[in-house]
């Protein structure tokens, strides 16, 4: 792990227009430091996915500059950027194609030219990490939705990229799987990996309290701590999202003199207990 303040991704005045003329990004400036946990939020079509697709070179800027680990993405191939920046797509069915889970996880490692014994070791490690060891020889198509998502995640984590991007990690999963995944992501970040998630699931973000970037219509409207941004009613309304349920409750109880900048369940409970004790 490098120095914690080194910028791994730098975005300078990034503009992007799709070939069909849709202007998806309009002047984005953003610095992401190594080891940071960032959530990019905003409504559908705000440009979130378009932005992160620049981080591994799938899209190239129309105007402006994106630097990954000090290198301009214009100059390097997707494959060489992918080695540093892992991208887990929203729908695992868009990438699973092998006969066994093991092969699926080894696919990227083969592309990157890892040696056979290293591949075996890393596959074992990644499957173990995501609790998929018993499915090693199973066809990925036989697994449930949540398991398929985990296979997709394992297939990216296997090559241990510096940055992991997760596009809508919370979609299509039941609450328990979502919670497990959330804990896993937090743990990954705690171990020093830079994690970027793209989502409009406020509750999912509220429980992690990462740095949040809000986007609307291709522009960044806010950048800061989740706790500050998600409790700002006007700001979240501008990005067409609603504050977390906890925040909504406390905004409703404002007249009782309770704080309104809460997003975390445990903190909320502590505040409520304190005020109940004080009043009794």
């Amino acid at each position: 792990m490098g120095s914690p303040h080194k910028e791994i991704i730098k975005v300078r005045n990034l503009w992007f227009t799709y070939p069909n003329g849709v202007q998806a990004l309009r002047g984005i400036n953003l610095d992401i430091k190594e080891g940071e946990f960032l959530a990019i939020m905003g409504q559908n079509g705000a440009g979130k996915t378009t932005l992160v697709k620049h981080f591994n070179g799938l899209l190239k800027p129309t105007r402006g500059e994106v630097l990954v680990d000090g290198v301009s993405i214009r100059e390097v191939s997707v494959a060489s950027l992918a080695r540093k920046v892992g991208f887990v797509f929203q729908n695992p069915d868009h990438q699973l194609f092998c006969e066994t889970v093991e092969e699926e996880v080894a696919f990227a490692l083969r592309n990157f030219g890892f040696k056979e014994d290293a591949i075996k070791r890393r596959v074992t490690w990644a499957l173990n990490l995501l609790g998929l060891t018993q499915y090693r020889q199973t066809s990925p198509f036989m697994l449930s939705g949540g398991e398929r998502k985990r296979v997709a995640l394992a297939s990216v984590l296997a090559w241990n990229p510096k940055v992991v991007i997760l596009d809508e990690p919370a979609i299509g999963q039941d609450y328990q799987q979502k919670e497990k995944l959330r804990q896993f992501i937090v743990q990954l970040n705690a171990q020093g990996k830079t994690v970027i998630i793209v989502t409009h699931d406020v509750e999912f973000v509220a429980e992690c309290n990462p740095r949040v970037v809000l986007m609307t219509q291709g522009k960044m409207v806010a950048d800061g701590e989740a706790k500050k941004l998600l409790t700002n009613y006007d700001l979240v309304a501008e990005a067409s999202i609603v504050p977390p349920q906890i925040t909504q409750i406390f905004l409703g109880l404002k007249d009782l003199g309770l704080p309104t900048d809460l997003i975390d369940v445990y903190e909320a409970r502590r505040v409520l207990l304190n005020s109940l004790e004080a009043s009794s």
Partner: protein
Amino acid sequence: MSVFEGFRFRRVSSPIHRLDPRVKFLYVCVMFVIAVMFNKLLPLILLFFVQMPFVWMAGVQREWIRSMRGALMFALIIFLFNFVFTYFYTEYPQLPSMTLIEYSLSMTLRFIVLVESFSVFFLTTSPDHLGLALEQSRVPYEFCFAFTTAVRFVPVLAEEAQTIMDAQKARGLELERGSFMKRVRNYIPILIPLIVSAIRRSLELAEAMESRAWGASEKRTNLYVLKTKRPDYALAFVSVLMLILAVYALYFLPIPSLTTLLPF
């Protein structure tokens, strides 16, 4: 991709766009039959120019030219194949004769005429009209539905293919690397998810259709009913007339070859 651009329908209004698609299809079929009937250059040149007014009336010159440009590459291949193979089988030791060149050229022009008429047809007929035309020509509804659905899902599949390509590239897949066989094999990680998701999508669509009572009534009615109007009858008449003339010309008129007409 420019070849396909030359067949993509755009919603505009013109006398040709308003024609009954069934009659337009009859016209295309007649063009097809005539083009196949003749292997001399003169009638095929005539056939090429006969269709020009349609392109102009429909106002699709730009798209039409694009389809022609797209066909050029194939046309060249057809010319070379015809020329080279016929030459080696028939006239090899001598120099190639003018007749051979004319023959190869007419084979090429035949292809261009076919592309031309199909291009005009697809450029001026909306997929919805095409479905309607099939339905109201008493083709079983199941087939019509399958056809229109297939047409409608082409852009959806194209978009999905792009997403899958991105997902695999993000896992280090390099499509443009390696020998020819390697490059072909590179497409397996794209094709499998695409096919699987297409099958899945079609099953879902089938369930959604059935839950909306698809096929409940034997006889379906249509909101839009195709009506054959005066211009349609005129085009049908012209098409049949052209066919009769062509048959007459083929059997009773000596068609001169260009080599005898031109002073070489």
